[in-house]
Every structure is written in C-alpha cells, then in structure tokens.
C-alpha cells in the first residue's frame, strides 16, 4: 500500500514549486558538480596527454618528424613553458582555464577557443540530429511491431539487436556504397546543404536506435500489460490510442534517462563518422590533436565535450521530469545528482 507522499496545495502552485525545485538547490549542486567535473577532466587529460610519447614542441614546429633547428626548438620550448617542470605547466594550464582561456594550439597556429567554437556547431548538430533520428527510428519500430503479433515483435526486437551491433565505420561505408555509389541519391561527404547530413546522421542514429529500442521495448511491454492500459481499453480506446496516449510515454522514460549517456557515445561515434564523411567537427579535431600531441586542443575539446555532456544530462533530467510529472520520491539517494 504505497501511499502518495505529498499532496500539493494547488495545481498552479505546484508547477511553480516544481520549477523552483528544479532550478534551485539542484542547480547549485549541479553547478558545483560541473565545475568539479571540468577540473577533473582537464587534469586527467593534461597528464594523460603528457604521458603519451612524443614531443609537443614538435607539434608546434610543424608536426612530428620535422627537421627543426635546435634554436627553434629551444625558443618554442621557452615560449610555451615546455621547459618548466610538468607540474608547473599543469598549474599554468589550470590558471589559464580558470580565466576561460583555452590556450593556443601547438599545431594549428591558432587559439583553441575559436577553433573549438568553430568545430562545435557541426558536431552538436550531428549529435542532436542523430539523437532525434534515433528516437524516431526506435519509436517507429516499437510502435510498428507492438500489437501486431509475435512475428512482428520478434522482427522488431531482432532488428534492434542487429542495429545495436553495427560498427559505425562499417555501417558508414555500406551506406556510402549503397546510397551514393549505387543509387547516387546522397552525397558521400559533407556538403553545404542538408543532403550531406543524411548519411552521417543515419550512421550514428541506427545503432543508437537499436539500443534505445531495446530499452523502450521492455518498458513498452510492461506498460501495455498494466491495468491502466486495460482500463483505457475498457473505455473504448483503440490500440493506437493506447499506444500513443499511454504506453509510449512510459516506454520513453527509461530511454530518456539514457539519452545523456547516448549523447556521450554519439560524440565518440563522431570521431569515426566525421572522419569517414569528411565533416568538420570536434571528433576529427580531437583525433588529429591527439595524434600530434596537441595538448591544449585535446584539453579544449574534452572540456567542451564534458560541458556539452553535463548540459545534456541536465536537459534529459528536465525532459524526464516533464515526461514524468510524478514528484520524485528518492530525494535521499546519496550522490543523487545523477
């Protein structure tokens, strides 16, 4: 007999208070958490990149293998403080980050801030579109295959499992061969117009859709078997009504919760997809920067990605609260910031 925990006073007041709860204390805690995460991410990245064999000074002087003069190397080392102990370099880096200065790229002859900003848009667009399309695909498959008999259900869940197991780069190439080379309907590389986005987005969205779909299907099945759905049917609700008005919302909840994670995995996927489809973006920037040991760029990109991830989790939290207006009961979970 789990009783409701609170009874709010009025529906208008409730909304206001819920919003307050949403942006009040949790926000403060979130901000603190975000700062911590950013600091830790920067620290970890800094030391990890410094551990990698390879001389950053070379990155500054035209990449590894450059036949640079000793004077040039010395000059560069002094200019970038690379002759200082690593810990001092770290402190200097932190100091710059604290003032919002992402520093200067070793390899690219430009400041990291503008660089990252110029690449951010493409990757965000890709990630957000992919997430949306993955959602649509997962929803589409779930709605198509439920209530259509065991065969459809099996096909649906089979497709999801297969989709989730597709390696990005393989899927990308297959899509290129089919859609660009055979059919000639879509460009295999990024273009100025939206057509160039289709294949990259599909590449990222299909495996993710498989994943979201699996999660959704479980909760969809539970929801469809629950008494409130029977009640709705007893009211004369059609199967489609049952699905759209009741079951899907329940099915979506756990998948919404996963969307923050999914966003993170999309950024990983972007490394591959941006390379294959020759799209500008953070993934490619990151890959290049790591291979030439361009520490400031690696840190800059990772920080931005971490920030995007944090924002995304806040957004998914908001989304799940909108989709699930029930007051949260477990305010006492330790480390409840997630």
């Amino acid at each position, binding site marked *: 007999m789990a009783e409701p925990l609170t009874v709010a006073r009025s529906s208008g007041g409730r909304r206001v208070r819920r919003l307050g709860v949403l942006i009040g204390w949790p926000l403060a805690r979130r901000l603190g*958490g975000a700062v*911590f*995460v950013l600091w*830790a*991410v920067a620290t*970890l*990245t800094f030391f*990890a*990149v410094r*551990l*990698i*064999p390879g001389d950053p000074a070379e990155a500054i002087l035209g990449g590894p293998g450059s036949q640079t003069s000793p004077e040039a190397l010395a000059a560069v080392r002094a200019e970038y403080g690379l002759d200082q102990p690593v810990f001092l370099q770290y402190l200097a880096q932190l100091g710059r980050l604290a003032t919002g200065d992402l520093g200067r790229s070793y390899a690219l002859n430009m400041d990291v801030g503008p660089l990252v900003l110029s690449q951010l848009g493409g990757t965000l667009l890709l990630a957000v579109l992919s997430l949306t399309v993955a959602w649509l695909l997962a929803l589409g498959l779930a709605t198509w295959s439920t209530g259509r008999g065991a065969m459809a259900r*099996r096909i649906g869940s*089979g497709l999801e*499992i*297969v989709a*989730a*197991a*597709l*390696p*990005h*780069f*393989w899927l990308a*190439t*297959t899509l290129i*061969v089919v859609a660009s*080379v055979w059919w000639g309907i879509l460009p295999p590389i990024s273009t100025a117009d939206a057509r160039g986005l289709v294949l990259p987005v599909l590449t990222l969205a299909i495996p993710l859709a498989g994943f979201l779909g699996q999660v959704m299907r479980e909760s969809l099945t539970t929801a469809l078997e629950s008494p409130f759905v029977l009640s709705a049917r007893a009211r004369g609700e059609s199967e489609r009504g049952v699905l759209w008005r009741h079951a899907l919302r329940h099915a979506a909840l756990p998948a919404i919760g996963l969307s923050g*994670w999914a966003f*993170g*995995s999309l*950024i*990983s*996927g972007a*490394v*591959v997809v941006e390379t294959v489809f020759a799209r500008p973006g953070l993934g490619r920037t*990151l*890959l290049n920067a*790591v291979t030439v040991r361009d520490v400031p760029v690696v840190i800059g990109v*990772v920080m931005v*990605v*971490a920030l995007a*991830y*944090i924002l995304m989790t806040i957004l998914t939290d908001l989304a799940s609260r909108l989709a699930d207006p029930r007051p949260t009961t477990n305010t006492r*979970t*330790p*480390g409840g*910031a*997630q």
Partner: protein
Amino acid sequence: MNAVEIAAGLLALLLLTAAIAPQLLAPGDPLAIDPLSAFGAPSWTHWFGTDESGRDIYTRVIDGARDSLVIGVSATLIGLGLGAVLGTAAGTLGAAVDFTVNRFLEVLFAFPGLLLALLFILVFGPGAGSAIVAVGLSTAPGYARIIRAQLVRVRSSAFVEAATVQGLSRARILGRHILPNTLAPLLVLGTLGVGQAIVWAAALSYLGLGAQPPAAEWGAMLAAGRTYITSAWWMSFFPGLFIVLTAVCATALGRAIERRMRHA
C-alpha cells in the same frame, strides 16, 4: 527454449568451436598468403573469397574468432571487474566513498569513451592487449553505475531488512544477501557487453589502434577490407557479419539468461 534461443545457442557453440579448435572448421593456415589469387570473390574453393594478400577469408574469420572473443570477453571482464569494484565500493563503504566514486564516475562519463580508449592506447602503445584494457576501461563506468544502483536497491530491500531482524552481522548480510543479489545480474550484463566490446575494438582497429598484423582479428579484417569496399565487398562483409552475429548471439543469450533468472 524458443527458436531464437536455440539458434543463438547453436551459433554460440559454433563460435566457441572456432575459438577453441579452429582447425575443426577451417583446416587451412589463416596467414598463408597467395598474392596471385588476391581479391578473389567467394567461390567453392574460397567460401568467403580471398583478401588483398590472397589469404582465405573463411579461414581467417574462423581463426579470428579466438582473438575477437578473447578481446570481447577480456575487455568485458575488465570493465565488469572494475565496475564491480567501483560500484561495490560506492555502495558499501559509506557515504564518503560513495560520493568520491560517484564524482569519479561522472568524470569518466563526461569523457567520451573512445577518447579514453585512444589516450590509453597512445600511452601504452597499440595492440590487442591495449585494446582490451582500453575498451574495458571505457565501459567500466557504465557497469559501475549499474552495479551501484543495483546495490543500493538490494541494500534497502525488504529481505535485507529481514536479515537484520534475524540478527545477521553486517558482513554476513553483505556476503550472503547483498553481494550475491547484486552481482548475479552481472552475468547478463557481461553477455550483453561482449558483443559491444567487440564492436568497440573494431572501431579502434579502424583508427589503426587495434590488433596488430597479421592477426586475423575481425575488427582489423573489417577495417582492412573497408578500403576495398567498392571492389571486394566480401573482404569487409564477412568479418562484419561475424561481429554482428556474435553481438546478436551474445545479446540473445544474455536475454535468455535474464528471463530464466527472473522466473527462477
């Protein structure tokens, strides 16, 4: 046992055979080159065709099962093990540890998984071993979080309370009730994870950071074959097919085990 489970079971058997005794299925030498019959399409002599060095792809795919499964399984074990340690520490060692571990996990989550793997490989050098640890590392936070959540759920469950009322000591409750109930689902997680780990390792191979030549690891074969996708589709199709099949098979088995456990 439904048809899907039987099929998955048979497939698993086939893959295990390939991993343990590849000669049974493909007696040839996976490394034997034959440059003059390179890029051969699938035929009766070469079921899956030949690659750019004239090696028999069927033999290589079968032979690669071991490397790929070892990568998948060990990476998953590392990920799960690490996840279990972190998750259990967070769930049992009190609020301070819980807090610390949670922050740590948050940091790892904010790190794109592929980058984590990339950094690790660049620091420790490429190769199957690095790929295993790298994939293990980047999947650990996810596992840790699931395990911790499970632990918290189990810890506050009625049967743990009942054990307290019976007078069991904290350690006994932990050992007898909490840990077994938390860790049992790991089997399922693990099976589901193996397929994903292989896919991950394949991505590293694509970036040139996975298993080293001439190993017949599927990811590496897939990555190598991709170059020739327009002229020799079979070079990437069959390794890709086996990656997908393994992942599907692992998922199906994991689901089956989960169902069993739930209805047990």
